[in-house]
């Protein structure tokens, strides 16, 4: 899952790398980019927290990719079991897919508490390390 995160970051870092290279003349942009391609980095200083809208959009994307979800009832307040028609095993899968999407690991007891789309959004927005 860190692999995914580093791929995503790599794209945005390439543009920042050019700006850094301009201020540090000894390093050429090309060498920096080469270094980043071989050695994935995470810039903890870059970017801010995820916005609630983007979290919601990505969670919707995860749920849309999940075959068994009743797409017509997909709303921010939908319950996994009642509205989206999932059973408890499916809910585990959805939570795992959300974990993978945001590159976080959700402990068992907290994963059990996530039963609605809203709770998933709330949980991810409280996680500092989600990206």
């Amino acid at each position, binding site marked *: *899952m860190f692999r995914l995160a580093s791929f*995503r970051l790599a*794209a945005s870092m390439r543009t920042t790398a050019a700006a850094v290279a301009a201020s540090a003349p000894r390093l050429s942009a090309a060498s920096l980019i080469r270094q980043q391609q071989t050695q994935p980095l995470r810039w903890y200083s870059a970017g801010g927290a995820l916005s609630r809208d983007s979290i919601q959009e990505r969670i919707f*994307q995860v749920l849309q990719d999940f075959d068994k979800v009743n797409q017509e009832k997909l709303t921010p307040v939908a319950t996994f079991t009642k509205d989206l028609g999932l059973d408890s095993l499916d809910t585990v899968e959805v939570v*795992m897919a959300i974990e993978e999407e945001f590159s976080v690991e959700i402990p068992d007891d907290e*994963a059990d508490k996530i039963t609605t789309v809203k709770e998933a959004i709330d949980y991810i927005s409280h996680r500092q390390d989600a990206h």
Partner: protein
Amino acid sequence: MSATRTEILKLYRASLRAARGFETYNFRKYFYRRTRDRFHDTLGRGSELSGQEASQALDSARAELAVMQRQALVNRLFAHNRTVLEADPQYAGGARRAN
């Protein structure tokens, strides 16, 4: 059955995590699919199973979890080149859409 409900979900989560731990794309996808299908076929319809069937299914799921954890570790130790598909970040986690 209801007493072991949380236990089953816990086992399921651990099994999916173990399946996700394989480095090789094909193994990872296969074990994920297999775990999902097994659980839905047997433990998913818990109330229809007799107590003995359920405990047998649980025991075999536990045994398989141990096998998967061990084999995923071995698979990570001997990881080699990723598939062409995975080299494209768009598909890094499987069949995934670009953001």
